[in-house]
């Protein structure tokens, strides 16, 4: 059996199942949103607020990582893909092959924070040292903070947009010793216990309440050894695009779902939603 015939067989079977499922539920009003774990909490808050203005509106939101959201879009299983990274060339080619046109919405700006345990003496770090740590060239804190303990890296899984964002920004391959954690919250909890740990999380996950952050310290980042150290929690710096690890948060919407989701998109980019975005620890850039 050749490739095409096999794929056709599989898709026929899948189609059969989806028709079966489709006829069971009313999908007209339900918007399916999938993708970035960084954006999930924010998307849920936005959808809840929007629901108050329009009670007929319903939305199914799930995470799984930016890559998963985009794949779901390709497979027709989602109306909106949340993504913390732009499409790769490979993905663009796949959408082109399927003749799917996408609309892109940038609705917020996110900063990724690097965190260490609060007993770690360093308060700032430059990008060059950071890439040496994340790639595994430097495996001991001694040259960085003076403490003679091995470095433990807490990262995300490869399906996470934050994972590929940091990798691209630092232009490295991650150390093989890096642990792959299932989410931002798990990284924070691990750092709270591990005095030799370093990890990266979306700035939205760093609580504004001081007592919640007991045990962790957010590092200020220097672009190079001589420049100013900038905190990911500083809104003016983010607005002026001075923080090294900041990026726009995207939503990709296929053309055919656009009409269905339009009022929600307006709500989050122009309406009440903007206040929620700022309250959740993200930034608006207009």
């Amino acid at each position: 059996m050749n490739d095409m015939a096999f794929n056709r067989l599989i898709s026929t079977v899948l189609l059969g199942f989806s028709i079966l499922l489709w006829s069971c539920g009313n999908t007209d009003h339900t918007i399916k949103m999938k993708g970035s774990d960084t954006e999930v909490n924010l998307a849920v808050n936005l959808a809840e607020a929007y629901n108050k203005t329009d009670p007929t509106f319903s939305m199914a939101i799930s995470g799984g990582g930016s890559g998963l959201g985009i794949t779901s879009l390709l497979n027709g299983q989602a109306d909106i893909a949340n993504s913390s990274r732009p499409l790769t060339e490979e993905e663009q080619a796949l959408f082109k092959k399927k003749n799917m046109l996408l609309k892109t919405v940038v609705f917020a700006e996110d900063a990724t924070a690097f965190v260490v345990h609060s007993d770690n003496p360093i308060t700032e770090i430059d990008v060059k040292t950071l890439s040496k740590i994340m790639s595994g060239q430097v495996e001991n804190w001694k040259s960085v903070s003076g403490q003679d303990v091995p470095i433990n890296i807490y990262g995300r899984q490869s399906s996470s947009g934050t994972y590929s964002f940091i990798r691209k920004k630092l232009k490295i391959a991650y150390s093989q010793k890096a642990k792959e954690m299932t989410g931002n919250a798990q990284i924070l909890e691990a750092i709270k216990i591990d005095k030799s740990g370093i990890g990266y999380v979306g700035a939205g996950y760093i609580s504004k309440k001081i007592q919640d952050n007991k045990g962790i310290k957010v590092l200020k980042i220097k672009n190079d050894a001589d420049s100013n150290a900038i905190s990911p929690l500083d809104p003016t710096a983010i607005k002026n695009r001075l923080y090294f690890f900041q990026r726009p948060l995207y939503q990709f919407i296929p053309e055919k779902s656009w009409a269905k989701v339009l009022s929600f998109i307006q709500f989050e980019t122009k309406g009440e939603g903007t206040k929620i975005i700022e309250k959740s620890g993200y930034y608006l850039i207009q």
Partner: protein
Amino acid sequence: MQYKKRVAIDKIAKIIFKSTGYLVLALLGGIFFMLLYNAIAFFLDVSPLDFITGSQWNPTAAEPAYGILPLIVSTSIVSLGAMLIAIPLGVGTAAFISEYASPKLKTILKPAIEMLAAIPSVVIGFLGIVLVGPGIADLNNLPNGLNALNGAILLAIMALPTIITISEDAIHAVPQTYREASYGLGASRWQTLRKITIPAAAPGIIAAVMLGLGRAIGETMTVLMATGNAAIFPKGFFDSVKTITATIAIEMGEVPYQTTHYYALFAIAIVLFFMTLVANLIGEYFINRFRKYHAA
């Protein structure tokens, strides 16, 4: 008329049950061929020798490496560790329930153990993150508890119900006459259990262990949450490991379809399939031997 109706109903019932039986076979065959088909596509790109002997799994690197060895070692460390913990606990519990426990205690213990099997794996994984992991870290003075030992302890908990239930059946099924003969020769209860009952039930106990092992190898969510998932080649119980199941679960969500990486996941899935298949077949073999042995 009545007779014809009865025959017709019987015929229809036969067809229905036959088709459900064949459906299960078709499902198994279909899954196997889907795995095989995609795995073959992988081996057209990467040589099987590199796949089996490569000591690095890093498909997203600039030069992708598809070595399954670290994954197999990880899965083996975690599941064998789980067995080391679960076998003494499980067989001991089974012997206690069958030989020592009062009937009243038995009626409480047996359902309680079956309840253990009903706990969802994600809950066990959560326990690993908040309880077992930090506990291991504290006891051994480690920076974190996300390692193979954590996974092994959790998988031992998950394999226990299988091991206890089947072992208990096996020990219980040893004919009473064996024990009576042993007591008649003046042997104590402990001597009888150790030298007569457990050896007589051995095939059943081995079957229980193998079925428990099959469960441990195939478990995904728990190890994904609790073992840290570092891709490096593991050296011991205190290293983070990334098992076959966790690798598939993590990478399947983001891999672009019809690429080498995508096919590679099917190739490691087929290896996993064979590992659990062998464990289950050995288990079935000993269960059958045990049945024949005692039927005679």
